[in-house]
C-alpha cells in the first residue's frame, strides 16, 4: 500500500517535470498561453467594474466582495486547469492513448490527473490570487480567515474536478465523445465567478448539488462575509467529502467499462 503510494507520487513528480520541460521548449507559445490565462481574469474584472459603475450592482454584494468571489473562482479555475483538462481525457480514449494508463503499474486515476493538466493554467490562478489579495485587503479580511476559506475552496474544487472527470469518462463510455465538456467547463467557470444566488433556486441547486461549482467559490466567499453560518459550512464540507468519494467510486467503475478507441 505504502509502496504503491510512493510509486504514484514519484510518477506524478516525474510527469510534472516532463510536462514543464516539454512546455518550455516553445517559449513564445508558453508565454502566449500564460498571457491567455492571465487575461481571463480581465473578463470578470471588466464585467464587474462596468456593472457596478452603471448600476447599484448585485443585492447583498458590494464591488470588492464581488471582486473577491470572482477572483477566488478564477484562482480555483487556474488550479483546476493546471491539474486537469477533462476534454483531453475523452480525446485520449478516442485515439487509444488512454490504454497505457491501464497497463502501467500506477493508479489509472492518478495517471489521468498527472498527465492531462494545462501547465499554463497556473497563470490564471496567479492573476486570481493577485486580485483576491487586493479585494481581501479592501474588505479587511484576516489572513487566518483567508487560509480557512482557501482550504474549504480546495475541497470544493476537488469535488468539481472529480465530477468533470466522471462526466468525461461517462461521455466516452456512453457515446464515444466528450468534446462538449469544454463548453461545460466554460459554463462552470463563468457561473462560479458570480454569487450563485443570481441564478435563482434552480441555479443554486444545480451549481451546488449537480455541477458543484458553488462549492469552490460562492459558499467560501459567502462564509467570509457572514452570509452563511458555520454550521451550514460544516454541512457543506461533509457534502463535499461525500461527493469526492462517490465520484471517485463511479470513475473507477467507468474505467472498467472503457473500450479502447484504437491507436
Amino acid at each position: 500500500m505504502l509502496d504503491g503510494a510512493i510509486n504514484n507520487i514519484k510518477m506524478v513528480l516525474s510527469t510534472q517535470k516532463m510536462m514543464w520541460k516539454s512546455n518550455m521548449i516553445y517559449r513564445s507559445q508558453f508565454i502566449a498561453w500564460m498571457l491567455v490565462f492571465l487575461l481571463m481574469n480581465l473578463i470578470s474584472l471588466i464585467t464587474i467594474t462596468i456593472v457596478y459603475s452603471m448600476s447599484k450592482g448585485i443585492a447583498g454584494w458590494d464591488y470588492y466582495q464581488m471582486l473577491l468571489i470572482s477572483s477566488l473562482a478564477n484562482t480555483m479555475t487556474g488550479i483546476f486547469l493546471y491539474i486537469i483538462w477533462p476534454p483531453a481525457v475523452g480525446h485520449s480514449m478516442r485515439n487509444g492513448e488512454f490504454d497505457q494508463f491501464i497497463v502501467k503499474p500506477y493508479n489509472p486515476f492518478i495517471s489521468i490527473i498527472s498527465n492531462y493538466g494545462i501547465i499554463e493554467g497556473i497563470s490564471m490562478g496567479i492573476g486570481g490570487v493577485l486580485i483576491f489579495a487586493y479585494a481581501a485587503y479592501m474588505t479587511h479580511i484576516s489572513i487566518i480567515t483567508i487560509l480557512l476559506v482557501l482550504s474549504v475552496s480546495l475541497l470544493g474544487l476537488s469535488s468539481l474536478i472529480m465530477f468533470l472527470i466522471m462526466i468525461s469518462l461517462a461521455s466516452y463510455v456512453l457515446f464515444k465523445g466528450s468534446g462538449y465538456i469544454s463548453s461545460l467547463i466554460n459554463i462552470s467557470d463563468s457561473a462560479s465567478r458570480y454569487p450563485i444566488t443570481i441564478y435563482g433556486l434552480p441555479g443554486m441547486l444545480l451549481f451546488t448539488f449537480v455541477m458543484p461549482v458553488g462549492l469552490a467559490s460562492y459558499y467560501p466567499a459567502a462564509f467570509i462575509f457572514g452570509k452563511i453560518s458555520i454550521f451550514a459550512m460544516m454541512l457543506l464540507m461533509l457534502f463535499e467529502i461525500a461527493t469526492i468519494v462517490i465520484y471517485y467510486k463511479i470513475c473507477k467503475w467507468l474505467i472498467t467499462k472503457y473500450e479502447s478507441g484504437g491507436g
Partner: protein
Amino acid sequence: MANRYFSVFKISLKSGMAYKAEIVLKIIFSFISSLIILFVWYAAYHYSNTSNINGISLTTTVLYFFVFASIAAIWGGYGVGKLINSDIKTGSIVSNFIRPVNYVYALFVRHLPQTLIFLIFGTIPILTIIYIISGMHMAIAQLIYFIAEIAIAYFIFNLIAFIISIFTIYLSDVEGIMNAVFIIIEILSGAIVPIIFYPKPIYNILLLTPFPFLAYIPISTFIGILKISQIPWILVIGTAWVLVLSVISRILWKKFNRDINIVGI
C-alpha cells in the same frame, strides 16, 4: 474546378457530422455558457430598481444576450486559424500543397461546413424561437442587413484568424497567441458587455474598428438598437474592413508561404 472544392466541402461536412450527439450538446452548452452573463445584468437591473441602464432596457439587454448566445457558437474553434496552425504543425500542409486546389480557398471551404452546421442546427432555430417568443417586429431590410453583417463577421473573424495563423510558419504554433488575441477581441466586440455600456469616446472609436462586427453590430441590428438609417454606412465600414484584411492576408501569405518549414509532429 468547382467540383474539387465541392468534394473538399462534402468530406468536411461528413467529418463534422460524425459525432451528432456531441454537436447537439456543444450547441446547447455553448448557448447556456453565453447566457451566464445575462443573469448578472438581470440581477443588476433588479437591484437598481430600474428598467433602463444607459438608455438600454432590461428587455433589450435580455434579447441582446439571447441573440449573442445563438450566434456565439459560430465563432468557436478559432475558424480557419486552427486548421492552418494544425496543418503546419503536423506537416499535413505538404499534402495540401500538392493537391489540385488553391490551399487558401480550400481552407475556407474546409471550415465552412462547421459554421453551417452551427448556423442550421443552432443559430437559425434559436433566433426563430427568440423572434416568436419576444414578439418583436422586424422589417425585411433589417433581416437582410443582419444576414449581411453575419457574412461580414464570418469573413472578419476568419481573416483575423488567418493572419495570426500565418505566423505559425515562424513560430511553429500560434494557438496561444490566437487565444490571447481572441480574448481581447471578445472584450472589444461586445460579447461580454454590450459596447454601448463603455464610455462614449471608447464606444465611438470601437465602432470604427472591425471588432463590433463580431457581436455588437449584428445583434444590435437584429434587436433594433441600431437605427435602420445608420446600417448602410456601418455595412460600408464592415466591407472595407473585409477588403483591408483580405489584402493584408494576401500580402502576408505571398510573402511568408515560401518560408514554410515543416515541423511534422
